[in-house]
């Protein structure tokens, strides 16, 4: 075993993979679908990609890829049965694209222990690939947030309906809060109060942006660090299941409102149409982008993949 590792390491040490996490507060907004097809789109452009299913309680990334989910899974790695994370990678339909399954053979796996999470976080960068894409679960548990915060880029899938938007903002608040986990306790407490205040009779609310400008005044020596820390998050919005043309405006609008509320850069990456073909490809157990390569959603996926690639290559 050690010999094999050594043979692999020179290659993987030369360049670490870019890690993208796909998240969003709500379930069913297309996180696995987007992860799978973005990964395949990168693979089609000749990149070496490994998709990791971190939706540990209800993994189905393998299904979006048209795979069975049998074989080695993350729990084999977390329990120590497999020592090299690269041994978990399953081949997919497209060359250079691999997948690490999170299929739930161990029913306890959703409740990652701290050391298990730390082990995973530490070793994601040692996956032998150009890109590692993390498909996260819904919700705002620390296990989900930590992977999202630690990734080089965070992609957020949002659907043009109020429930999804409410959960997206909630998710973002948690992300920013988690990002500052090393800040002094008073700062965190104040920030928590700002972000969780209830809206009362349409009265003025406080935003994270306002909080930061107050911090500028109170702690001029410390505030810039706070700002830098928050703005180091690279966030990208994907509006999914667009029905009408005006839904595509939601991305622009949210980019603006996020900037104002969170004082953070949230880019509008692109949108995907509501399309029955998606359901059909799932039923056929074949990945969407290879089943319907000419469809507009496949084209949009490829466009988004190359936009992000251009950003990473700068």
């Amino acid at each position, binding site marked *: 075993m050690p010999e094999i590792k050594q043979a692999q390491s020179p290659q993987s040490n030369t360049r670490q993979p870019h890690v993208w996490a796909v998240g969003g507060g709500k379930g069913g907004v297309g996180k696995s679908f987007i992860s799978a097809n973005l990964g395949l789109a990168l693979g089609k452009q000749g990149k070496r990609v490994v998709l990791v299913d971190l939706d540990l309680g209800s993994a189905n990334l393998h299904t979006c890829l048209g795979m069975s989910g049998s074989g080695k899974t993350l729990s084999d790695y977390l329990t120590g049965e497999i020592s090299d994370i690269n041994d978990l990678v399953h081949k997919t339909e497209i060359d250079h694209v691999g997948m690490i399954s999170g299929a739930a053979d161990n029913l306890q796996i959703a409740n990652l222990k701290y050391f298990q999470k730390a082990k995973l976080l530490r070793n994601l960068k040692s996956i032998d690939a150009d890109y590692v894409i993390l498909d996260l679960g819904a919700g705002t548990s620390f296990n989900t947030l930590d992977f999202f915060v630690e990734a080089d880029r965070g992609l957020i899938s949002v659907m043009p309906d109020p429930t999804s938007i409410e959960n997206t903002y909630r998710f973002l608040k948690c992300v920013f809060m988690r990002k500052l986990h090393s800040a002094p306790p008073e700062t965190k407490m104040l920030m928590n109060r700002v972000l969780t205040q209830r809206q009362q009779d349409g*009265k003025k609310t406080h935003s994270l942006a306002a909080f930061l400008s107050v911090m500028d005044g109170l702690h001029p020596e410390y505030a810039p660090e706070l700002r830098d820390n928050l703005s180091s998050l690279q966030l990208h919005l994907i509006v999914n299941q667009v029905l009408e043309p005006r839904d595509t*405006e939601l991305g622009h609008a949210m980019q603006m409102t996020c900037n104002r509320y969170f004082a953070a850069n949230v880019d509008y990456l692109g949108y995907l149409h509501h399309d029955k073909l998606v359901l059909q490809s799932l039923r056929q157990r074949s990945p969407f982008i290879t089943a319907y390569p000419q469809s507009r959603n496949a084209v949009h996926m490829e466009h988004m993949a190359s936009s992000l690639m251009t950003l990473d290559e700068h």
Partner: protein
Amino acid sequence: MNIKKGDSPPDYYTLFQIPPEASKIDIINAYRHAKLAYQQDSLAIYSLFSEQDLDQIHAQIEEAYSVLSDPVKRADYDALYLHTGSHPIHEAGKNVIPLHRQHTNSPDNNEPEKRSGEEDTYSGEALREIRESKNITLDQIAYKTKISKHYLQAIEDEEREHFPETVYLRGYLRQYASQVGLDPDRLVRHYPPLSEQE
């Protein structure tokens, strides 16, 4: 927790998500996007802003547009803003390739409300400036639209006599608009040779 007004000038560029060197067109587009983003029934504001916040934001948007759309006021503001410049300038989305620009043009732009504040005309001269600022040559437009460069030149020179039928001029203008990232309808409405005639 109070945000003191007057500590630093209100950051119009951040509000509109544009860099300080933004062109006239960028400002008009940003204004339109801002109005859509913060209008009462916008999805994007759901659960994030209260009514009072929105009133304040609406006022700021109008104020920002009234300053940035006026070259004299804008120059004054720039002098002040770039001088104090305490806020970081966000260039969100600048690197991302715009996705199907023509599709994202909202169908709402025909509402009279949206049209207010867009009294500007697009003279041939202005069109040339916009095109050059985007580093697009007439040859490139001619190649993409299959419109002869001769006609494209005539559009920028406002030589109405090259187009015996208005309908051709309108059609060409629309195609020109979509190549340089303008709203085709708006260009047709605000192109001087066409409006003079009516």
